[in-house]
């Protein structure tokens, strides 16, 4: 199947996934009604007025348009962004085990976020303080991991994982400290749920920044797909193919931190999406980043939509944080990767 056909097919699956997942829940909803309501609210050029939805009960309208739709879309955007960021980080460290959660980048972003939520830091940044702080935390932790996992100019996979664990633990400790020292009980409850990774309670206004970050980040990376290929082909090879590797890596680091920070600020740390999606895509489609990046975005979106459906349904009526389920799937997946690809950990020479 060509790339275009695959992308088209996946876009179709995404559309069906969005529609179906919106209908799933305590209140049953007709799929057609979903699109009538969307059309009523979102069609451009005054066409929306032509879609009459008066026959749909107001309560159902609200459930679809104000509760489920933003939540499903947020899951899609975050899933896409996390899968894409996994691809970017893997290219940057030239190793398929890199992922924001495993390398402690999510944990660093979470530190920035809890400082804003619970201690009210960085107020001078105004409305976007949360996202900025999370971006900064993610950037600092990624830079730390990258610098500390090098030895003699080379990153060994084992070192990468160990440093990632350490940075992740440090971030976790700071986050816990901030949480336990916070004064308001309700804030702590919310923070704990959010920290575990969740898209529950998403509103339309939560979507704007993540969607923008995804578009910008994915756009930049797509333009650099050839350079990403050259970088994973070899550290020195990349230079001989005309890539300024220092500058290029710095760019990948900033884009990754931007994406992770924005997503963590909205939905906490949702782990392993960036590990599982790129890995499966590479098995099926190879490693050419011009294919991997758009496919990862679509598959990540579809994946997280359905995991979130699981989070709503598994322990209904109680909600699970979606991060609990991604970790429950991703943890064993990671172990499986390590089991059958021990090369990735022990290193396969240059």
């Amino acid at each position: 199947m060509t790339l275009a056909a695959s992308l088209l097919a996946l876009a179709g699956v995404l559309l069906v996934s969005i529609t179906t997942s919106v209908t799933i829940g305590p209140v049953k909803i007709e799929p057609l009604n979903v699109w009538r309501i969307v059309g009523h609210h979102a069609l451009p050029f005054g066409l929306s007025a032509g879609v009459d939805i008066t026959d749909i009960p107001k309560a159902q309208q609200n459930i679809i348009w104000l509760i489920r739709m933003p939540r499903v879309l947020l899951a899609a955007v975050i899933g896409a962004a996390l899968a894409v960021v996994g691809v970017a980080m893997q290219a940057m460290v030239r190793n398929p085990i890199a992922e924001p959660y495993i390398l402690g980048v999510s944990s660093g972003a979470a530190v920035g976020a809890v400082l804003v939520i619970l201690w009210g830091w960085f107020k001078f940044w105004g409305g976007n303080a949360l996202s900025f702080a999370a971006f900064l935390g993610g950037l600092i932790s990624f830079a730390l991991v990258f610098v500390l996992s090098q030895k003699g100019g080379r990153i060994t996979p084992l070192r990468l994982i160990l440093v990632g664990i350490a940075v992740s633990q440090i971030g976790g400790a700071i986050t816990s400290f901030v949480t336990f020292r916070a004064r308001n009980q309700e804030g702590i409850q919310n923070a704990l749920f959010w920290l575990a990774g969740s898209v529950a309670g998403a509103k339309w206004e939560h979507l704007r920044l993540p969607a923008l970050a995804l578009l910008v980040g994915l756009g930049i990376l797509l333009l650099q797909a050839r350079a990403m290929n050259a970088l994973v082909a070899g550290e020195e090879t990349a230079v001989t193919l005309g890539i300024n590797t220092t500058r290029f890596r710095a760019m990948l680091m900033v884009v990754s931190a931007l994406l992770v920070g924005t997503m963590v600020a909205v939905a906490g740390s949702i782990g392993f999406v960036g590990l599982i999606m790129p890995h499966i895509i590479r098995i099926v489609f190879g490693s050419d980043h011009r294919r991997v990046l758009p496919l990862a975005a679509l598959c990540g979106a579809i994946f997280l939509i359905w995991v979130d459906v699981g989070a709503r349904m598994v322990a209904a009526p109680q909600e699970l944080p979606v991060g609990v389920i991604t970790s429950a799937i991703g943890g064993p997946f990671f172990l499986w990767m390590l089991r059958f690809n021990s090369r990735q950990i022990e290193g396969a020479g240059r």
Partner: protein
Amino acid sequence: MTQVATPSVALLAKDVSWSVDKRAILSSLGLDVRQGEFAGIIGPNGSGKSTFLRTVYRVLKPDAGLITLDGDDVWKLSTRNAARRTAAVLQETPGDFEFSAEEMVFMGRTPHKGPLDRETAEDHRIVADSLARVGMADFADRSFSTLSGGEKQRVLVARALAQQARFMILDEPTNHLDIRYQLEILELVKGLRVTTLAALHDLNLASAYCDRIYAIDAGKVVTSGTPQEVLTPELLRRVFGVGASVQPDPMTDRPHLTFFPLAHSQFG
């Protein structure tokens, strides 16, 4: 135009020095590679062969000295510009990332492409042509990681070809290859008639394929010249610490080296 011009110099390195932790790896190394020739660097492990090549393909910036290619300081070029002029066949592979042979060769087009450029028919022709020239046209869709050592090396040469650079660097291109593949790779590169500088560890191969050889030791050029001039028992003793007899090869007339067991090379 019957006048024979002296071959012009493609690569010129003057007084190149590089050290790490105050230990000099290259000290005032100087050499040149002439247009169209296949030049070799030989020297024992740690003599600075690969380090020198790295200063040419711009992974290590020399502490002192000058390296020019066709008269331009390579370290004053942009990374991209330098990559259009110099292609390198190194011993790096993508490891855990799977690429097809064709995708590997397409990477050679990287320095010719801007972020918004798409692959043109011309690029496809260049890539197909490069694969064909190394005899790997039928392997285009094969996964690079499943190829044999010799086939991989051919693909890397094809990538260097697709780069369309006028100067090629080879770092120990025959490492870990069976003898048949060693000969094939060097024959192949030599047949391309691209100006080439290769670090070689097999002295008989260096003798058979190089137009000129630089013998280096402790980061300095010890001697240089044709294989006949460089590969002498005296040099082998001094630089490599081995005893050897050197006979003209009956087939090629190039020096053929036979090494003595160390027990028999007790000299001076």
